[in-house]
């Protein structure tokens, strides 16, 4: 027996593990006043077409390898590429995009770098960063853009 408490989950959900959609959060350093970006703006930022924030600060991008399983949705929805193509793009733009090996590294980079923007799993979020809305929505809100397997 495992300890438990009353939740509808107990009755409604048989606990099985299948490929549930992950949600990714866009984060910036806490000094950044941008609270919302459109998905199109985000694509322009990640592909280097927009290189500074509205206040003129240069944008520093940090991502996990976009060909990794967790980042497929970023490759597909933001780079409009397959994982391997996105990886090649990122490698070819190493002056623009820093590749991190984990969400922790992304969070550390963003929290300590002015003008930084990164993408992490929702459940990796920590206090030292801002979460930016995409198209007016935060992760966990219905219709949030960066969600998928």
């Amino acid at each position, binding site marked *: *027996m*495992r*300890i438990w*408490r*009353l*939740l*509808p*989950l*107990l*009755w*409604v*959900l*048989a*606990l*099985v*593990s*299948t*490929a*549930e*959609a992950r949600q990714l*959060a866009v984060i910036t350093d806490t000094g950044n006043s941008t609270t919302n970006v459109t998905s199109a703006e985000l694509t322009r930022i990640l592909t280097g077409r927009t290189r500074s924030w509205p206040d003129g600060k240069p944008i520093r991008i940090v991502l996990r390898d976009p060909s990794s399983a967790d980042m497929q949705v970023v490759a597909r929805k933001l780079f409009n590429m397959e994982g391997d193509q996105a990886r090649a793009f990122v490698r070819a733009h190493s002056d623009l995009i820093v590749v991190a090996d984990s969400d922790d590294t992304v969070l550390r980079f963003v929290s300590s770098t002015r003008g930084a923007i990164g993408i992490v799993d*929702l*459940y*990796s*979020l*920590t*206090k030292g960063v801002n*979460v930016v809305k995409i198209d007016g929505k*935060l*992760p*966990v*809100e*219905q219709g949030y853009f960066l969600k998928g*397997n």
Partner: protein
Amino acid sequence: MTLGTLRRVTIFAICLVATANAVTKDNPQKGVLPLTTKSKEVRHMLDEVWRLNLDEVQTAAADEVLRKALKIDPDFAFGHVLLSQCSLDPAEQVREQQKAFAMRAHASPGERLVIEWFQNAADHKLIPAITDMNEVLRRYPHDRWVVFLANWWLSQQTEYERAVAVFERSGITDSPGLMNNTAYTYAYMRQFDRAFALMEKYVAAMPNDPNPQDSYAEILRMAGHFDQAIRHYQAALAIDPQFYSSQFGIADTYSLMSDQVRAREEYRIGFEKFPSLPQLHRVQWQTRQATTFVREGNYPAADQAFQVIADQAHAKVMSQVEADTYRQMAIYQPEAKHAIRFLDKAEAAARQGRNAMPFAIQQETAQVLRARVEVALKAGNKKMASSALNRLTQLSQTSNDKVIESAYHGAAGAVSFADAKYNEAMSHLEEDVNNPLSLQRLAAAYQKVGYGTEAKRVSETLANLNDPTLEQAMVVPAFRKCYEDPDCAGNLRNASLKK
């Protein structure tokens, strides 16, 4: 002094020595959460709570010790949050979380973070809840209470990999309670080899205790090893004939083995032998007992059995339990008008919202609306389906709640599937993969659009689902029958049933 008492006193003494060592060796820098109670006695009682609640899973006894501890130190805010999380009484869960939050000023910064994490979770503020949890884990990665609470909360969020990672990074390798919890998490991920390996360690660590045998049995049952499961339940009862969970575990197992007569007999023995079960445990097994009639297709008998539970819940002012009981009654009704009547009662009970966390009531309301969509589709009433789905959409748009969102996607997927919009259905149903009804539709939708591998994977998951819930009863046995019938057209022909 009985042998059992002697054993417990010995374990308690060992725990005290271990804790004393831990207190002298550990400090906040080493990752241990500082507990703000001035009372030494309360600290010792917390060790007892850990042993009872985590290692032995005697939750009611653990709650009793926590209540006594909080009488000694009513300002111990972290104690209140623990009782809120561990209580088997919904009203107490609500009360204690409120007390914990009100008293957070008395707590250490780490304890305050834990209190705020659960307050945010209760208030549907998922992002702050996550950041609070991660901050607590960053500061105190080796604290057993923090590891337990994070592992447990993440499992509830179906973040199983992360839940396991919290345990693995903690470096705590000798805690039977954490072994037990993590083994369950592996089982939810259907990584049964890892779950069994941890269970072997748990049994070896506590060879004279019934819970390791009971947990092992439950995980074997989840894996479909029913005969072995019953042997382990019997071993638990041989160690402690009062360990009621194992008696009901045997009943649950017979029910999953399709022997409903024997299952009901075992439930009857359980209720007779253990008349003073904690409220929520009683509800859980009464519900499963009622479900045996659904498994037999004997709906009038099921109605009677479920109605008893609903009446008890009403009398004890447990709104969520009452609502959920009526919701379940609606699900199996062959006639839509009866189902709708029960759903009306379910919504009325949920609206009362007594003795339940507000988030739990909203989750329940979402489940009721989802059931309305199912009932409407079964009756071919698209207008009703659309109206219920609209209400559910509004609810999910205003809440950051995984359970509510899953309910929305399950319902939206059902509507799309009924309209033969299979691609649209798939994208919704993939967001509700813990519900057998959605899994069944998802497998069929994959099949319809020619995703054979995906259809097979989902079919296998569904065919091997051994959970004694009503939803499992409604879907899985029929699904398996189709598998065994070579003439049955559909999605599960290639699935393998692991027995």
